[in-house]
């Protein structure tokens, strides 16, 4: 084992050198089908989406390419509130998930002892319920005469017209609930990796709990914090289910507009233009993050 240990302890980022042409040929052969699939059904649609966004026409008569770049100006002028809401909701939800998720991840990693795995399992338990049903369940809980409001109303703690469902709070609440585990898991992974002897060393050097946390624990958990933020921010910015099921017409996000334009109005150029704006905004953010972190950290 003595020979083996260094390799196990340090999984090298670089695979062993195998430079013979025959072996490299095998690597490309292994990559070809999967990458081909992604080229055909991820990259090509992304390009096609851009082309479609520059088409004009109607659903009945068909769309033709006219290079109508003005659509981006029109779309931004037509849906500024939705764009604003998508980004602000995503920011609020990310910060809220961080505020709730960090102490939870910390408690699991540092304090759970032998219950660690059991509690982690509880954190991912919501994933065993379909996303739509989970969100609908909040509609049950928050309904005007449901278990929560109905009870408070019947004992006179709330006026009869009090409402949570169909409000911004309900949408944000649903989003926070649905994406909390995505924040907790990466945070847990990086907190769990921290060598306890580092914390002991800080204590031995007369660091109090506060400064140990701020100067040792927090910096070491940054990769998890950033990964968790991405895993929360990106899907929330593109979400439309919570706004649709728990919100009202004044809580619609970009996702709702895309869905309506594409599937109800069959206005593919408009839907494509909005999707492109959403994706561009997010990809720029991801590249900035990736540069800050180093891509190996992110792509694993």
């Amino acid at each position: 084992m003595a020979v083996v240990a260094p390799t196990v302890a340090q999984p090298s980022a670089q695979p062993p050198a195998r430079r013979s042409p025959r072996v490299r040929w095998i690597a490309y052969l292994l990559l070809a089908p999967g990458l081909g699939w992604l080229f055909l059904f991820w990259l090509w649609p992304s390009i096609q989406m851009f082309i479609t966004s520059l088409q004009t026409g109607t659903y009945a008569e068909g769309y033709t390419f006219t290079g109508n770049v003005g659509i981006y100006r029109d779309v931004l002028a037509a849906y500024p509130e939705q764009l604003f809401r998508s980004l602000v909701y995503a920011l609020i939800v990310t910060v809220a998930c961080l505020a709730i998720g960090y102490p939870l991840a910390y408690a699991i990693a540092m304090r759970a002892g032998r219950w660690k795995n059991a509690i982690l399992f509880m954190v991912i338990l919501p994933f065993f319920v379909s996303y739509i049903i989970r969100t609908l369940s909040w509609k049950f809980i928050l309904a005007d005469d449901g278990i929560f409001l109905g009870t408070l109303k019947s004992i006179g703690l709330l006026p009869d017209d009090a409402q949570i469902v169909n409000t911004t709070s309900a949408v944000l609440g649903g989003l926070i609930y649905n994406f909390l585990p995505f924040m907790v898991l990466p945070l847990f992974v990086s907190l769990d990796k921290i060598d306890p002897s580092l914390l002991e060393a800080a204590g031995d050097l007369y660091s109090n709990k506060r400064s140990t946390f701020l100067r040792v624990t927090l910096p070491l958990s940054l990769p998890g914090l950033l990964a968790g933020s991405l895993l929360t921010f990106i899907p929330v910015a593109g979400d439309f289910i919570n706004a649709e099921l728990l919100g009202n017409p004044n809580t619609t996000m970009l996702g709702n507009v895309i869905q309506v334009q594409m599937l109800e109005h069959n206005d593919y150029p408009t839907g494509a233009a909005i999707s492109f704006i959403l994706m561009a905004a997010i990809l720029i953010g991801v590249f900035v993050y990736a540069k800050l972190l180093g891509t190996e950290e992110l792509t694993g």
Partner: protein
Amino acid sequence: MTDVDAAVAFERAEGRGTSNAPRRRGRKKGWFLPTFAGLVIAYLFLPIAVMILYGFNDYAGKYNYAWQGFTLRHWGNLFDDPDLVTALQNSIIIAVVVTALATILGTMIALALTRYRFRGRGATNMFIFLPMATPEIVMGASLLTLFVTFGVPLGFGTILIAHVMFCISFVVVTVKARTQGFNAEWEEAAKDLGATPWVTFWTVTFPLILPGIAAAAALAFALSIDDYVVSTFNAGKTVTFPLWVYGASRQGVPATVNVMGTIIFLVGVGLALLNVWFQRRREVA
């Protein structure tokens, strides 16, 4: 590091409490974190409990919101709705095919990325990451523009294509996590003993990375069977289980949704616990 400190560190690494070890300065155990964690876990459980509970609600009319009494009738007439049965069948068939395809394609990529050095490896890593960084709605919408442009009829096939696409990256990342810590010397040993690369792969490499592949397959299955967003753009007239639930919720959520949700939840949790139990047993054995 003193012996006592080492013992504390060891016990913590082992996941045991430190109750017998002398407490270090400034590590008084507070009540705040455990209480907070408990409350958050309760918050995570709440919608699940409510889902299960309302599957037993004896409500009248369309809206299953106010609690009106206990009944088992929603469990009895579960499969009376032929649309629900079709939706479930579609979802399961799609998930099985998608799992098989995405796991094979993704595992091949993961092997190439971790076992070989080749030109474009960094770019491939980045490219694999991109679909995971794309919001689902953008993937769904962009695929729809492709299918519409080329007149591809929407339905079963287009859902399959879409699901395999978004599962591949997750499979690659999951399998890679296993292949990265992998010890190449075992493969070298097999070769030194005269095994061909093909035999080496199936007798040494594959069994070692199998847990990673199994985890990836489970993830792909879960992603596929629960997908609503991408499916809604590319399903055409085909209905999967999440699409059916969404449609049904438009006119008040029927209690059958709660019952189906409860069954899927119990089966999923049961399988996960069984998996843990088997692994424990294997470790003991």
